[in-house]
Structures are given as C-alpha cells and as structure tokens.
C-alpha cells in the first residue's frame, strides 16, 4: 500500500535582504494513514516551514518552495493552483497552530468559527453545519458543547481554545492533520489533556498526524515514528522506540543527553556551540562544528541519507561506520 502522504526532496528557501535562508533542504518522508509522525528539532531547524510548505502557506515574499514534491494520493500539491489548494486545505489536510490565543478570531463566537469551516468545504445547510459544530465540540471533550457554542474565544482558557482549534481542523474529516507545537503554550496538566485527546482522535478518525515539536518528551508519549531535523535537513528517522533506545545521529544523541532525567545526578551532557545560521552554511555536515565525532570528511562533504535495516535512516558518516561495524546492512 502506498503511503498517504509522500514528501520528496522538499526544498524551501527564504529570500531575505541578508541572503538566502535555506529553511528546508531536500526533506523526504512518508506518512501513512493511522500513523503519528513527529518532526522534532530546535528553533530554526525548518520544522515549522515544512508545515507551511505542505499547506501551501509559505509567506511569499520572502519564502518560496524551490523544489521537490508533496504527493497526496497521486496529486503533487506543489503543482496545484492556489484555488485548487484552497479546496485541499482544511478539507484533506488540516492544521492546528501553536498559539491558541491568536489563531481564533476574537470577534466571532467559537461556534460560528467552526460552522464557517464546515461551510467552506461542505454543501450543507447552516442548520446542519451547526449540528456538526456541536458534535465536534463534544468530540473534543468540551463540556456543555451547546452552551459553549455561543462563547467568544476570550471567555475560554488556553486549553479550551486549543480544543476548539482541533475541532475546526477536524470539521471536514481530514486525511492529514498537521499539529505545529500544539501544546507548547499550554500548562503541563493541560498539555497532558490535549495530547491525550489528539491520540484518541487520531485513532477514531484514522488520520495521518504530523506532530511538530521541540519537546522529546511529547514525542515519546504520542509518536509512532520520528524525523529529527537539524538546520533544515533530516538527520535521522526511526520508529519511536528505536530513537529513544538507540539514537544513531550524534545530534539526536546530544538532544537526548541534554534532557534532565529523574534520578540522574550528574551534569547534563550539553551540545557545545550555537545553532547555526541558515544563511552562511558550511559545505559539509551542518552539525559538524558542534559534533564530537566529526571527522575531516564531515567538514567537506554533506552525508547522504543511509537506510539502516528496513525502517531507519540516518545522515552521518560516523553513524554509518558504527552501524557497519556492528554488522548491520547499510544502504546509501
């Protein structure tokens, strides 16, 4: 069975006065139906720009998608016109944003905003749309959905607003849901509630979910597969258990090492240096300047994505050598 969504070699650049920012460079991944894929990385790694690229919402200027394909079924979304994309957005691919405070329009009631997103894509009467909206509010576990329907966003807490955002995203039963840092602005107990909800809805709807986050803890709880990004590129991809049990890329290892864990007294293992600028990229691996395992080759040559076993991908010369040393098949 072919995957639900196939991203091949996606490249998005921002053309700024200071120079060309290579926000996303040759990114490829597949998303199956009924799967949660986490895109993980720190600020400036290109994860949010990836989401905007998939949605066809890259701000232009300064941004432009300069190459690659995004295949949803047999259509390449990058070849569609803006009008055709509008039919896809919210209908087949929906998105939930980070800021529940600013992503809802303050002058309309939450119910009306959900009704609006139903009516955009469905030929139904206003009354049917209203019924659907109440259903959706109930679905995202908002207590007393009929009562909340007429509330304005400012009357709701951050967690409730994020539920409304999720209800709007689910209005048209999308195949793919992109959640960009959906719980970053929320308190930890509310985060637990929202993540729990996302997990359940994913099962109920059988959607493919792309979860974009900087928080590895969130990933462990909800993702099936993980793509780790650094400086616009995918550096590692693996099933979630493998990423945490045996990370291959030195960056993934560093990220895990720098997380404080209960019961461990010692100093945190820090990754030295700073996150690189995406304008003056060095010729080799962009992680090389911060990498303890960097070799001369790493500073000259960009490592390709090597497939390891049947489900893992890593872009690192040192990791390839290590894996080959362990007698595993490496396919570059």
């Amino acid at each position, binding site marked *: 069975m072919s995957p639900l969504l196939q991203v091949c070699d996606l490249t998005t650049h921002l053309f700024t006065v200071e120079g060309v920012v290579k926000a996303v460079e040759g990114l490829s991944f597949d998303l199956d139906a009924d799967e949660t894929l986490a895109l993980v990385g720190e600020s400036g790694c290109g994860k949010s720009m990836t989401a905007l690229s998939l949605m066809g919402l890259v701000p232009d200027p300064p941004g432009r998608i300069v190459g690659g394909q995004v295949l949803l079924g047999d259509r390449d979304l990058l070849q569609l016109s803006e009008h055709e994309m509008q039919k896809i957005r919210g209908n087949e691919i929906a998105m939930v944003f980070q800021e529940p405070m600013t992503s809802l329009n303050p002058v309309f009631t939450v119910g009306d905003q959900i009704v609006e997103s139903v009516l955009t894509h469905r030929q139904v009467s206003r009354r049917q749309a209203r019924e659907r909206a109440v259903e959706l509010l109930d679905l995202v576990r908002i207590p007393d959905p009929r009562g909340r329907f007429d509330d304005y966003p400012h009357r709701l807490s951050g967690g409730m607003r994020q539920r409304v955002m999720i209800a709007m995203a689910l209005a048209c039963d999308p195949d793919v849901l992109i959640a960009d840092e959906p719980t970053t602005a929320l308190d930890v*107990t509310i985060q637990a509630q929202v993540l*729990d909800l996302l997990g359940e809805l994913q099962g109920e709807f059988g959607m493919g979910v792309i979860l974009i986050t900087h*928080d*590895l*803890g969130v990933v462990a709880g909800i993702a099936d597969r993980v793509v780790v990004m650094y400086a616009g590129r995918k550096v590692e991809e693996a099933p979630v*258990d493998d990423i945490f049990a045996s990370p291959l890329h030195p960056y993934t290892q560093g990220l895990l090492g720098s*997380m404080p864990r209960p019961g461990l007294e010692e*100093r945190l293992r*820090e990754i030295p240096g700073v*996150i690189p600028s995406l304008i003056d990229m060095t010729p080799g691996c962009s992680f090389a300047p911060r990498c303890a395992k960097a070799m001369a080759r790493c500073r000259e040559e960009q490592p390709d994505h090597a497939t390891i076993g049947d489900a893992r991908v890593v872009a690192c010369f040192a990791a390839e050598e290590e894996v080959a040393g362990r007698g595993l098949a490496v396919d570059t």
Partner: protein
Amino acid sequence: MALLSIRDLMAHFETPRGTVYAVDGVNLDIGSGETVGLVGESGCGKSTLGKAILRLIEPNFGSIVLDSVDITHLKRRQLARHRHKVQMIFQDPYASLNPRATVGRIIEEPLMVNGWGSDRERKERVAWLLEKVGLPTDSLKRHPHEYSGGQRQRIGIARAIALNPKIVICDEAVSALDVSIRAQIINLLTDLRDELGLSYLFISHDLSVVEHIADRVCVMYLGKIVEIAERERLWAMPLHPYTQILMAAVPVLDPKIARERKKIIPRDELPSPLNPPGGCRFHTRCPYAQPKCRDEEPPLRPLQGRQSVACHLVTEQADGSIAYPTMAAEAAPKNDVRGAPA
C-alpha cells in the same frame, strides 16, 4: 537562621474584573547555598512571589527578611543598600536586555548604579564576569541582538552575579531556550552555584529541570504552597494530589513507559486566580476530593522529615507511616528511567 525568610507573604492586584490573589500567604525559607525549586502552572503566583522578594512588586502583607534584615517596608534609599544581596535572572533573553546598550554596559550597569569600585576596577570585574559565564572578551562593544538566545542568557547571568549576590532568583531562566542550549545554561548555573556559593530560588514550570537542579522543592497552586519537601523525598513520595498529577503529566523520555503508565489526567481547567475556589483550592480538580475539602482550607502541615503538605487527606498514622490518596503504585513513574545510551 535562614538567609531569606518569607512569612505570610501576600501580593494582591486590583484589576477591573476584581482582585487577583496572586500570592496568598506564603511561608518559605531559603538557606545559604541552598537551591529551592518553585514549581506550578501559569497563574499560580510563582513569578509574582519571585518579584515580590525583590520588591519589584510591593507585597500587601507579610514580611521578607533577607540576611537578618527585614526589607519588607524599607524605603527606596535604604532598600538600595540591600539590593545587591538578591538579584534576578529573567525568562526572556530578548526582552531582558536593553537592545540599545552594549553588552559591556549592560553588565557594568549594576556596578555603576551601586557605586562599586573605580572605573578601572569595574572594567576588570566586567572582563572577569564575561569569562565566568563563558562569553568571548570581544563581547564588550557588541549589542545584544548580535547574540543567540543562549548567549543572551549568559549576559543576563553575568549582570545578575555582578554584585556578588547571595541569592539569585531564576524566573523561568531556561524556559525560553532550545534543549541543547538549555543544558549549557543549567550546567553554567550549577557551576556558578558551586563556585560562588550562591543560593537559588529556581522558579520553573518544568519539573524535570527543577528535579535536576533543586535541593528542596515547593509546589504552588493558585497562590498557595501545597507541598514542600526535599527533592528526593518529593519524587519518591509526592503526597499532595496536585503534586502527583503534576508529576504524572510530565512527559517521560521513554516511549514504553509513556505507553504503559496509567494516566492521571486532571479534571477541568485551572480555575482563575480572580475567583479561587473556597476550601482547598484544588478541590475542583482533585480526583479524591471530599466534602470537607470544599468547606475547609487545609493548612500547610509539617510531617515527619522535611516534608510539609496542605491536604486534608494526608494523615500521619499511629505507627508513624503516612496515609495519602493515590491511584495505585504504578500511577507515578518510578526513578527507573535509564539515561540515554552512549
């Protein structure tokens, strides 16, 4: 005698929609060289408490005794003589540095304001501070916008320790930083603590960070401390239902544990601090709430050892053991999370 001693501290704000009881009767001691973690969710008053200690927010009631001096009601001029003992590191590495000042100036400013040393001595001190926080010496003439978030936070740290404070209040000091940078700053803070003998009040919403750095931890909920205990003890046996829920909500770094652990998802949302519920403030979300919890506010009671808790349902048994409400043994993750593989 504790270095910092807070008694019955209250800080209320009048807003158009009513009074916000941000800090509502807090008692807290911080010893010399001790790191106290202060955790809680947004609106619990942890940041207000930090600012009230520095009298950046004037408390309405209670006392703050710093190094045996009651600074609660000191006039500005007198207060200035004690300011240097307690300093603050802020959350936002972008908003906390004056964008129009040079890095050298930002770090020297507290020395100048407090009339510290001669011009040359100050310059030497700034150079020493730069080195201490791991910034290159050519930083003096640069501006904050030339630096990344982590390096900006280093500038903020240098400014905070410039006057040789005894206590530094870290208000979400690492929350805005990326994971790999956050580890650098946490390590820097622990190094400085050990080298300079600092005490920290480490305010954070992130339990894993607090667990890493603090000796003792306070849990705040809607303006009140609900539990306070030594770090190991709190993680081994969280007594207050809110502490348990908070800990259970922290994502764990192991997918297997994350899938298996039983979720205690709290009911409801955080109530507004404008209208805190009566009785125990947590009763609206507490899975174990009894009628008593609605009517009567539980005091913060010390139990055996150095653990205090404000919950009616926690009781000391005749045999010395403690009975407390809990879902089940497997509800809270135990300390068996292994480190990342090499």
